[in-house]
């Protein structure tokens, strides 16, 4: 019979210890975690970034990743978007009883691989098991700390008129890849989620230009929502060109079928940067050298008129407003 996670695995007793020792500490091997004290204890000095996020994606395995990879990349990226070098993560599982142990192991394995690639360590964690029906298979929370180098000031409120808007690649890949696996909606596509840790890309960008004004990863709500947030936070307008925004043909096709606009579909391995015009070309070159920035393009610029508004020049040369996402396209994509 297949080994399953039981309520006892979250009880703090023997089974729980076994699970932690066997499945987590071994797989995520690092000295800080192995101590198994109530807190991870470490030294850090300088300006710190601290963030947390919960992951409830359904299904937990999707083309190009799973909830474990997502839980690492998502938090790493939130740190990176503040210009921080991500260092340490916490990892908390809320497991629905009955989850096959093999699935949990597979997810811990992707947590480990993603953490290794991102150069972060999982230094503390927690496991709870809840009754069948109280959760959907597995929820994960991660929190993370990172350190910000001196002279870096990246914030959503820093965009200035004249700045250029840079996008690191195609949009909509994650949302469509996850949706393609949904029960009752599954369609076949070769598309994979773009889920990836962007810490290195950001480090290379900061290296090329320490003057980056804003960074944001367009996850839920997609590019349109991120640009609206930045325009509102900075009190500027953003003008983008539809033709410059890279979208895969598969994403276009799926969006047509489902009635979505790719501008609102989630990404998990892309970033949008707002940078001084004079630094844009340097950044473009630096970003294109990174494997997660190969398709980087300048998609628009920042203006002073109509603060808070995002306007797009369509492929026909006309203009239209790009509003924030209203309601939800489809829930639980991250």
């Amino acid at each position, binding site marked *: 019979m297949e080994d399953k996670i039981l309520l006892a695995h979250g009880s703090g007793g023997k089974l729980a210890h076994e699970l932690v020792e066997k499945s987590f500490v071994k797989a995520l091997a690092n000295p800080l975690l192995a101590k198994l004290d109530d807190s991870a204890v470490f030294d850090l000095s300088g300006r710190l970034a601290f963030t947390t996020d919960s992951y409830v994606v359904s299904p937990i395995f999707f083309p190009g990743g799973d909830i474990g990879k997502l839980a690492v990349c998502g938090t790493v990226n939130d740190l990176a978007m503040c210009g921080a070098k991500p260092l340490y993560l916490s990892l908390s599982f809320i497991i629905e009883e009955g989850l096959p142990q093999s699935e949990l192991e597979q997810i811990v394995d992707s947590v480990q691989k993603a953490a290794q690639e991102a150069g972060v360590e999982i230094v503390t964690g927690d496991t709870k098991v809840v009754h069948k029906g109280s959760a959907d298979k597995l929820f994960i929370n991660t929190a993370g700390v990172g350190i910000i180098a001196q002279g870096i000031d990246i914030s959503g409120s820093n965009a200035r008129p004249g700045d250029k808007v840079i996008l690191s690649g195609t949009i909509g890949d994650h949302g469509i890849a996850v949706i393609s696996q949904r029960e009752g909606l599954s369609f076949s596509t070769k598309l994979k989620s773009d889920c990836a840790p962007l810490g290195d890309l950001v480090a290379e960008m900061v290296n090329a230009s320490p003057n980056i004004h804003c960074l944001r990863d367009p996850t839920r709500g997609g590019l349109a929502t991120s640009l609206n947030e930045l325009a509102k936070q900075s009190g500027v307008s953003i003008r983008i060109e539809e033709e410059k925004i890279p979208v895969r043909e598969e994403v276009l096709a799926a969006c*047509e079928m489902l009635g979505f606009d790719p501008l609102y579909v989630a990404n998990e391995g892309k970033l949008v940067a707002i940078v001084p015009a004079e630094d844009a070309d340097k950044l473009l070159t630096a970003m294109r050298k990174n494997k997660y920035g190969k398709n980087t393009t300048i998609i628009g610029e920042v203006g002073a008129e109509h603060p808070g508004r995002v*306007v797009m020049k*369509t*492929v026909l*040369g*006309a203009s*239209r407003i790009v509003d924030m996402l209203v309601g939800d396209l489809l829930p639980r994509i991250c």
Partner: protein
Amino acid sequence: MRFISEFRRSELAEGLISQIHRKSRTPARFMEFCGGHTVTIFRYGIRQVLPSTIEMVSGPGCPICVTANADLDKAIALSQIPDVIITTFGDMLKVPGSRSSLQQVKADGAQVHTVYSTMDALKMAEDNPDKSVVFLGIGFETTAPTIAASILQAEEKGMRNYYVLSLHKVCPPVIRALLDSGEVKLDGLICPGHVSAIIGSHPWEFIARDYGIPCVVSGFEPLDILQCVDMLVDQVENGESRVEIAYRRGVRPEGNQQALRLMEQVFEPSPAQWRGMGEVPDSGLKIRKKYQCFDAELAFDIEPGPTSEPVGCICGDILRGVKTPADCRLFGKACVPENPIGPCMVSSEGSCSAYYLYGGSFGG
């Protein structure tokens, strides 16, 4: 061939736009019947790039928008019957009826599920033999054949817990009603693409013949619409009126015979209530007697209560093309996508939603 990006190419669009500017001399008012076309027109800013000689008006072709409040109330009343599971396409959830919406009753505990195909609804009926699963049959000729197919499949499987509330509508009769009303004067009609994929282009002939109005069936990409406008301009400038297809990759003159047979087998024409237009003869589809055991209207005692319309909402006038969202005093103030008062703000194909999302002043 790429079926999407090819039809969004800016250099081809540029050529078509300048051609239209060159040719169009006579002032003309074109109506896009279909809500899908309205969305393309606003999403790409097509009104902005057309010459001032051409005026575009949006028509009643949004199936959710034209569903009368009385019918919405029926669906909501059905959801209150014990052991009834309502299945519906997603957009219906938020549409406010006289007192509530499916979304609200769902939050209060009613069984309301969004499905992407009637086959999902059938499966839900199979998986829940002790419940009654009702599919809300809302839509035009585009969706009616698949709903007919679901009824035939339910019959074949001997299922007795699957029902359809048939609120389907067919398009040609309502266009006739609109033209007969004399409220809107049209010089050209952009005929719906998906509806025509099923019924073909022949059913539009009467518009060109009896009313002298040029008709062109269009697809949903910006180049489709521009090509369609270009063909309409040609007819206007040459003083002609006939039915043409600018969407050959999707539509044949004779339509989809198999789909038409399915519809014919299961449904018969009936009068239907249209929001803003009242009852239009032969514009609905009723389940035939042979399949009446699947008719939710007959199977349940539905008590929807009195119907009322939201005060101040002019969705009806907007659907007839006699007013625009900008004429509505609720638009963008009391009525916004996150808190819609009228259906045209709810549906992704609604005029108000397209005006609001893509910016009346920018997109229109």
